[in-house]
């Protein structure tokens, strides 16, 4: 150490940091050190530069910022001595990454050092270049590296080879320059050079098909010979690892042969002998040998081969699979996964072992094994395998259950030849791991149940039994509640008893109890509770004697803080109270759900007609709302309601209906919800409420959906539906129209209101030879008076416009707010645009259209230009 050193040395600093008891102490020490280092840097203190940098590297490792030391690295690299350069390059690799601009400054020093007479300095430069070079540096320095591939010292040649890998990865176009030098490296005897040369060839093949062809033709023979030599080489202590000579070289040669043999029968043919030799002769009791075997198996799987070798390979994997070492089993599973694509038959033999691996205590192995097993399942073995997996589900770790459940569900669905088997397996999964079952899976289950009419009774009883034993599984509760609601009478009367079933006695009271449990459970979420409410409504008609009790349960939710539940409970209560005569028709059993539509939905290919059709609710798959022929009774009984209804203004009406005050501000039901929610047919079908406001319309239409048969002459779908749409959009005066519809009972359905919120066509507000202005319109839901306009300006001339300024003026009945523009420079010939947002509030909304005067000023070619225009072709109703 320098005798004049001041401050602490590196060792002292590390000691001080290690002595810190708390993070705060550590921060204080580091802060002090950093301050000293900064001071030293500012003084341009040369003697301590390398010490400062070493300290900074340690500090950086602790996770503190060290950017201020970057320039010090460059200074050290630029200095003449080896010690300075050594620490400088280390700092460069640690403190900088390739995206740092400072890095460009080092290119010149690197170039000098690559040509340095001291080979260790050349080595430092190559190492740094290989670890952090950017594409630009790669281009600048590739010739130097290429030259160093022929350097006299093998240590430099090997470094240059690896450095070339980085270069061709950064700039693949440079690959062809390296092909010849790389090929000559393959003839070397020095292991380091050979290893790196083979690696370089492999990477060249990846980026250049020309290189691949070249090596395939010229080098395959040589590589096979090298591999044979190394396999048969006598013991050499320098490269020996547990009885194998240089496994790294083995592995790299096998890897390159794989690349060369892939897709080329001729090259593959030339390597089969040596591959067979490696596969049979390599010792498999140590990791090094297994690493070679593993690589060899992969090569055999990848090259073109008649199958003899593949059997050998699969057998090696079979041996791996029964190994006690977890690592070996892991790689075997990994490899077998790839082997299944070649021929599943050979892998099938190991199915039992793989199944054991699914139950391993090691998460990595479990995951691999499950993935593999998933690929191995077919029609013949699905039943025993699923049985095993479901049994394992009971005892598996919590974190593994999600994966396992998803795989089981997917398999059960894929191979569900018999409905009863499918339902049985799904019920088991639901009761074991219902909380991990995804929504679409249990939706699918309900669709299947609905379609299996001969199994309704069986299913509802099985679900009831499962429900009694495991109430904590959310999705099980949902499916059970849905089925009890639908098929409650079958549950009680043991309808459709199958031979395999144990008889069960359930009273009407028990059924209602079950649903009550579901709704009162603390863990039940909104969806479950909403489903339970619907089930109760349905049960009230199935079990008339329990109607009063059910009403009691429903009423308890009248004050629920969740709007959805509150609304449902109030609506249902009203139905129970005021309209007993058509209640039973209202809550008839759901029609059979259409499987095709459902699977179409899942695939995301729902016909757009369904999601957008506004006037055609009859498109809905359950066939609700065939046009009602009978005169519609006044369902809401407005005039005789116990709540005085003074006037028919939307706000008041809604207040009555919901018992909450929604008028002054947008309803908490979130007026800005996307309109598509209301067309969510599936949710509608399954009566699943989600806290989407628009959906309340559906919950209502939903109840009615069961009356699709339309035998009952009263169907009041339109009336009720538009009522609910009102509640969703209550604060919007735009809903005046549906409101009126409600009163005369011929509402256009809930979707009508959506149209008001739909996009307006965009408008070319202004177009001249030099400039185009486009307006895009949008409305905030709940404030129809306000229109948001996004103006987009495009330059049609070939000159840039500077100081671009857009101004607008409106008549008194409008209010205008201009946001700042995105820029004030408009690039030439449409090569970019300026956007600016405007907000216009129309106080005479519905009576007068928008009108606007605009003025656009800009500079082009140093000339001021002013354009003016009145825009009165705005779309109606803005």
């Amino acid at each position, binding site marked *: 150490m320098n*005798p*004049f050193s001041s401050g602490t040395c590196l060792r002292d600093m*590390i000691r001080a940091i*290690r002595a810190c008891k708390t993070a705060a102490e550590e921060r204080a020490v580091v802060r002090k050190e950093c301050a000293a280092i900064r001071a030293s840097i500012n003084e341009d203190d040369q003697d301590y530069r390398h010490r400062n940098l070493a300290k900074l*590297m*340690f500090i950086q*490792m602790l*996770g503190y910022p060290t950017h201020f030391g970057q320039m010090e690295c460059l200074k050290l690299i630029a200095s003449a001595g*080896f*010690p300075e350069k*050594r*620490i400088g390059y*280390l700092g460069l*690799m*640690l403190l900088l*990454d390739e*995206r740092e601009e400072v890095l460009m400054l080092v290119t010149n020093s690197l170039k000098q050092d690559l040509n340095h007479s001291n080979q*260790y300095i050349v*080595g430092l430069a*190559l*190492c740094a270049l*290989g*670890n952090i070079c950017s594409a630009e540096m790669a281009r600048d320095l590739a010739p130097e590296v290429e030259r160093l591939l022929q350097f006299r010292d093998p*240590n430099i040649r090997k*470094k240059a080879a*690896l*450095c070339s*890998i*980085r270069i061709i*990865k950064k700039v693949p176009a440079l690959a062809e320059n390296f092909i010849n030098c790389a090929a000559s490296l393959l003839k070397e005897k020095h*292991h*380091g050079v050979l*290893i*790196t040369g083979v*690696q370089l060839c492999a990477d060249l093949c990846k980026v250049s098909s020309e290189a691949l062809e070249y090596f395939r033709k010229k080098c395959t023979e040589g590589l096979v010979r090298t591999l044979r030599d190394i396999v048969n080489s006598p013991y050499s202590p*320098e*490269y020996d*690892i547990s009885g194998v000579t*240089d*496994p*790294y*070289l083995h*592995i*790299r040669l096998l*890897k390159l042969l794989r690349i060369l043999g892939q897709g080329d029968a001729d090259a593959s043919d030339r390597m089969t002998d040596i591959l067979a030799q490696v596969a049979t002769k390599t010792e498999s009791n140590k*990791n*090094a040998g297994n*690493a070679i075997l593993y*690589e060899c198996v*992969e090569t055999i799987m990848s090259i073109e081969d008649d199958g003899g070798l593949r059997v050998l390979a699969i057998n090696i994997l079979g041996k791996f699979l029964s190994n006690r070492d*977890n*690592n070996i*089993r*892991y*790689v075997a599973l990994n490899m077998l996964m790839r082997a299944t694509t070649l021929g599943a038959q050979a892998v099938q033999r190991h199915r039992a072992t793989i199944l054991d691996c699914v139950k391993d*205590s*090691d*998460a*990595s*192995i479990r995951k691999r094994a499950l993935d593999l097993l998933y690929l191995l399942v077919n029609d013949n073995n699905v039943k025993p395998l699923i049985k095993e997996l479901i049994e394992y589900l009971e005892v598996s770790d919590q974190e593994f259950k999600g994966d396992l459940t998803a795989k089981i569900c997917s398999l059960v669905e894929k191979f569900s030849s018999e409905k009863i088997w499918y339902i049985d397996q799904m019920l088991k999964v639901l009761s074991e791991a219902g909380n991990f079952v995804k929504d679409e899976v249990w939706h699918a289950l309900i669709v299947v149940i609905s379609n299996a009419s001969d199994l309704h009774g069986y299913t509802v009883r099985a679900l009831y039994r499962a429900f009694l034993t495991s109430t904590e599984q959310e999705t099980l509760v949902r499916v059970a509640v849905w089925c009890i609601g639908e098929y409650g009478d079958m549950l009680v009367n043991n309808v459709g008893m199958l031979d395999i079933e144990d008889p069960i006695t359930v009273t009407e009271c028990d059924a209602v109890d079950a649903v009550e449990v579901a709704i009162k459970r603390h863990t039940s979420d909104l969806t479950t509770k909403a489903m339970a409410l619907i089930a109760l409504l349905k049960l009230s008609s199935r079990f008339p004697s329990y109607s009063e009790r059910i009403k009691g349960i429903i009423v308890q939710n009248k004050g629920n803080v969740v709007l959805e539940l509150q609304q449902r409970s109030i609506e249902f209560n009203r139905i129970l109270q005021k309209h007993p005569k058509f209640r039973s028709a209202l809550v008839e059993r759901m029609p059979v759900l259409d499987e095709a539509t459902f699977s179409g939905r899942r695939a995301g290919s729902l016909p757009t007609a369904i999601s957008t059709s506004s006037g055609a609710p009859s498109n809905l798959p359950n066939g609700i709302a065939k046009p009602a022929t009978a005169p519609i009774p006044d369902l809401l009984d407005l005039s005789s309601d116990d709540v005085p209804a003074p006037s028919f203004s939307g706000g008041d009406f809604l207040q009555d209906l919901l018992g909450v005050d929604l008028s002054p501000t947008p309803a908490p039901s979130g007026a800005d919800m996307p309109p598509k929610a209301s067309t969510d047919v599936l949710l509608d079908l399954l009566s699943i409420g989600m806290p989407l406001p628009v959906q309340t319309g559906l919950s209502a239409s939903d109840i009615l959906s069961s009356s699709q048969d339309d035998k009952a002459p009263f169907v009041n779908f339109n009336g009720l539906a538009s009522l609910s749409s009102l509640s969703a959009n209550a604060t919007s005066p735009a809903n005046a129209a549906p409101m009126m519809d409600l009163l005369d009972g011929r509402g256009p359905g809930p979707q009508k209101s959506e149209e008001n919120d739909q996009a307006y066509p965009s408008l070319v507000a202004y177009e001249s030879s030099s400039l185009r202005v486009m307006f895009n319109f949008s409305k905030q839901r709940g404030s129809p008076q306000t229109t948001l306009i996004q103006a987009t300006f495009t330059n049609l001339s070939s000159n840039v416009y500077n100081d671009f300024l857009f101004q607008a003026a409106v008549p008194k009945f409008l209010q205008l707010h201009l946001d700042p523009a995105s820029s004030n420079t408009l690039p030439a010939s449409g090569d970019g645009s300026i956007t600016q947002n405007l907000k216009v509030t129309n106080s005479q909304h519905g009576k007068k259209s928008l009108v606007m005067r605009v003025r656009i000023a800009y500079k082009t070619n140093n000339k001021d230009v002013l354009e003016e225009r009145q825009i009165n072709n705005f779309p109606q109703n803005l």
Partner: protein
Amino acid sequence: MIHFVLLISRQGKVRLTKWYSTYSKKERSKVLRELSGVILTRGPRLCNFVEWRGLKVVYKRYASLYFCMCIDPDGNELEILEIIHHYVEVLDRYFGSVCELDLIYNFHKAYYILDEILISGELQESSKRTVVRSVAAQDSLVEAAKEETGSTISNIIAHAAK
């Protein structure tokens, strides 16, 4: 290819990080946080591979230190275990039965050795002797340079003292 090499102590302290793929500062600390959480909590008899963000991390514990290397999903995990062991053996030869403290106080040496074994995420040398010899040769260059400056300074001092 090896994307990065990490040395983490059992207490979660980082002892060495080497990045061969580009990671920003933020990503680096996130990687360190995530991986030390995953690896340090794994039980002793589990396999040495962790699947992580589409890549694989091969790790091995030596005394109180975890050596981790992250590779592509199609890389040879067993070979990486050998490379880790290779590095550990070279460290052992260089320091003479290496311990964690050696790597703390001489962290730069650990980097120098790693640089002789790996460049751009690929293995450079399979002979331990060659690696140790190369590092030793460079160390002696540094020593020689130090003595030179030392002697000039002492000359100056001697000169000034006259």
